[in-house]
């Protein structure tokens, strides 16, 4: 009886297990099916898989319950594409690529966030090269800074930092300079029609103003074109019109190719080490290690120069921080979690190699993760900040490569300091103010830093 029963039970039991498996499998397909098939050229790689090597500012976002794009929206987009493909009189298969780029560019633009934008393969390549220290064009880290004055939104092309030895530095560009014109062409920074509307002019003045606005837009360069000509190595000499504070000046720059060494060091008199970190790229930690070895372990003081350091990748900055400060945390990253916010710490395994007192030089060009590091060194390594207020850019930007070599950058979070302080839009103030522009060949900020360190050592000695 038992034998006979089991003979009938077993197949059913196996079938039940199979059914369970099929059900489970089907459920998994529902999340991934459209991804896998809609995009056969590439597996949908998670952000984590992309970021460590390829991001220049990584988001440490854990795998959250990433729900798929609504099927209805997918269907909507798909239908429109199919209608065009099947029905449009001028459709050719070569148009699919521009259509794809057009779609994604407009989608990202609609977020109205200057740091979230689509990059065509060439633009993506330039950005990745820049993260490796290879700059083309004028050799300055640029950022679109958005501000709203009198209800007019402006997006200004701003120099974060000219890189050492770059055409931009030779031309005298400074952090915070706003590039308003390239070869006399207006870099379109706001909607002039809106400005006319707001100005309240009426009658014939309005007519004239509107016509002027139209002419300005037609003759102007949009931000993308402006960026493109500033990062083009083959562009001949060009004249930039720059707004610096309240004055306007013209600067002549000859673009070229620049390879930036991320770390430079030298020993100053009195056993004071000088260490300049230009940016946080993949080579920075290695170079820093050898720089610290080169400076020796008998330092009386160390100047860490973070001026014009635009930031870089979090991993790189973490490793740098580990060598300089005794802290388990580099920064806090605030990300979105559904409708709320989530905070996560960026942990580091601290192994400081510097025992000497530290002074950190900062200026308007010290931005992003460099600002985070400056605060960390101030709070956790007893460093004094000397120089100017920092840039105040706390946005975490993630670079997301797409299967065909294009990419996009998006804002994925906000950096807070190790203790949770928000410096975005505010910057970090130094303890000792010093101008960071060279005066008759004198680097006053560096001289100030050295004098602080030697004073300290003398007081300690006495």
């Amino acid at each position, binding site marked *: 009886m038992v034998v*006979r*029963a089991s003979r*009938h039970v077993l197949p*059913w039991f196996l079938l039940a*297990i199979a*059914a*369970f498996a*099929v*059900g*489970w499998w089907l*459920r998994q397909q529902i999340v991934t099916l*459209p991804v896998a*098939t*809609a*995009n*056969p*050229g590439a597996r949908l790689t998670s*952000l984590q898989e992309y970021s460590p090597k390829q991001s220049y500012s990584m988001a440490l*976002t854990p795998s959250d319950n*990433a*729900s798929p*794009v609504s*099927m209805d*929206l*997918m269907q*909507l*987009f*798909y239908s*429109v594409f199919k*209608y065009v493909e099947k*029905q*449009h*009189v001028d*459709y050719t*298969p070569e148009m699919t690529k521009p*259509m*794809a780029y*057009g*779609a*994604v*560019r407009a*989608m990202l*633009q*609609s*977020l109205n*966030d200057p740091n979230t934008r*689509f990059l065509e393969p060439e633009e993506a390549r330039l950005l990745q090269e820049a993260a490796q220290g290879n700059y083309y064009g004028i050799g300055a880290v640029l950022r679109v800074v958005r501000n709203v004055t009198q209800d007019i939104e402006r997006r200004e092309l701003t120099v974060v930092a000219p890189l050492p030895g770059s055409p931009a530095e030779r031309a005298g560009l400074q952090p915070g300079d706003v590039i308003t014109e390239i070869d006399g062409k207006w870099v379109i920074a706001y909607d002039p029609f*809106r400005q006319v*509307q707001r100005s309240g002019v009426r*009658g*014939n003045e309005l*007519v004239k103003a509107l016509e002027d606005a139209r002419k300005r*837009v037609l003759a102007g360069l949009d931000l993308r074109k402006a960026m493109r000509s500033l990062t083009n190595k083959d562009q001949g000499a060009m004249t930039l019109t720059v707004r610096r504070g309240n004055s306007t000046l013209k600067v002549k720059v000859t673009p070229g190719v620049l390879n930036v060494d991320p770390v430079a060091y030298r020993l100053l008199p009195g056993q004071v080490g000088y260490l300049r970190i230009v940016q946080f790229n993949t080579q920075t930690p290695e170079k820093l290690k050898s720089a610290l070895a080169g400076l020796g372990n008998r330092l009386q003081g160390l100047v860490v120069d973070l001026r014009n350091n635009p930031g870089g990748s979090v991993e790189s900055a973490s490793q740098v921080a580990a060598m300089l400060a005794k802290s388990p945390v580099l920064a806090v990253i605030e990300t*979105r979690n559904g*409708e709320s916010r989530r905070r996560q710490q960026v942990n580091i395994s601290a192994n400081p190699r510097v025992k000497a007192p530290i002074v950190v030089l900062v200026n308007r060009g010290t931005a992003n993760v460099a600002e985070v590091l400056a605060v960390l060194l101030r709070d956790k390594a007893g460093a004094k900040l000397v120089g100017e207020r920092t840039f105040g850019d706390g946005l975490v930007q993630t670079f997301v490569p797409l*299967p*065909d070599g294009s990419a996009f950058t*998006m*804002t*994925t979070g906000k950096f807070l300091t190790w203790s949770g302080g928000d410096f975005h839009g505010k910057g970090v103030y130094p303890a000792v103010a010093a101008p960071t522009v060279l005066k008759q060949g004198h680097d006053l900020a560096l001289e100030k830093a050295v004098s602080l360190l030697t004073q300290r050592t003398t007081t300690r000695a006495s």
Partner: protein
Amino acid sequence: MQKKRFSLSGFAPLLVTLAFLAGFFYSDLRTGDVRRALYAAQTVPQRVNLALQIEQDAQQGYLWPVGLYWDVLSRLRSHYYQPLNEKQLTYAAIRGMLASLHDPYTRFMDPTEYRSMQEDTRGDFFGIGAQLQEKEGQIVIYRPIEGSPADKAGIRAGDVIVEVDRKPVAGMRVDDVVKKIRGPRGTKVELTIRRKGEAKLLHISIVRDLITSPVVYSYMEDEKLGIGRIRLEQFNEKCDQLLVQKVRELEGKGLRALILDLRYNPGGLLNVAVDVASRFIDNGVVVLIQEKNGQITKLHAERGRALKPYPLVVLVNEWSASASEIVAGAIRDNKRGVIIGETTFGKGLVQTIFQLQDSSAVAITTAKYLTPSGYDLNRKVDPDGNEIRRGGIQPDIVVKQSEEMTDIDDRAHDVQLKKAVEYLREKLTAPKVASAL
């Protein structure tokens, strides 16, 4: 024992089904998200269908736009710093995709825009009776409908709308301006107008009313010689019948030569254009419709409908579009008449509107018109907005309109009309060399 075996085989399929469901919901129930589980279950057929469809497409080639859209949106969803409105993002993506085609007539309409468009074509809206158009970033009156409130208030074609109810419209889209102008019947709207040749802006108040369909007008320009003029405002259903009726009236007054005035005529129905052309062309091709893949359909004039072969002049200007251009092109290519005026608008495209799942819609250019000789009517513009092809029908005799002409009935200043009359006069009075011999 017998009984037990029976009950087992009865319950076993149920067990298997339960096992399937358990497997299906396992991952969701483990995370406790019942809502997602239900959503997943509900959309199985839809998902599987779409996935199969996409799979099929993917085999024929890489589904670029869909794949990239999906990639980017899913990344934004999980990692973007601010909350997202995915529907608006999708609409933006669709608009961007269509914009890359550089065809201004292929466009996406969200549910609100689509509804407003449907109201337009149904005709039961209250407006001022003027069609608007965007031209070089400005909102321009395309044509006031004859007898409409706009017409009565003195609005003219070419007027630039600067403000609506004293609010500037610069930078707005035509659809949005139209929305602002529309309103309940009997209410007033004030337009601020800039007009060529006027130093000051004009403020014109117009009462909104029901807009009725336009008609056909006839004029006797030269009673002695019998030069008549028929003006078509647009190509609607009644057009052809009215045309014949008006020509009969003119014939009663001794018609010997005809001017077909298509100025400011924005077009209309294709079959009406063919009907109208058939009144002038007895035997011949009216228009070629080029579909996707270059397939061409010839539309012939309908035999036996032609009027008497009067000497014919067609008057056109830059606001003559679509069906007007078809008729003018047909008359020119069939050597049935002379075209006088200015180069026409340059729009010979057919749009088909496809309604989408969420009551939004997409208008897609599905075909284009070529004149019988194969000339493509369409004006083309490159991505930067520069004209790369003018298109349109070039007149045989180019006559620029006088700046002094105030409206379409200002015959005293209508130099195009004068030229047409003059041309026909010469033709009617010229000694007939052939017969004299």
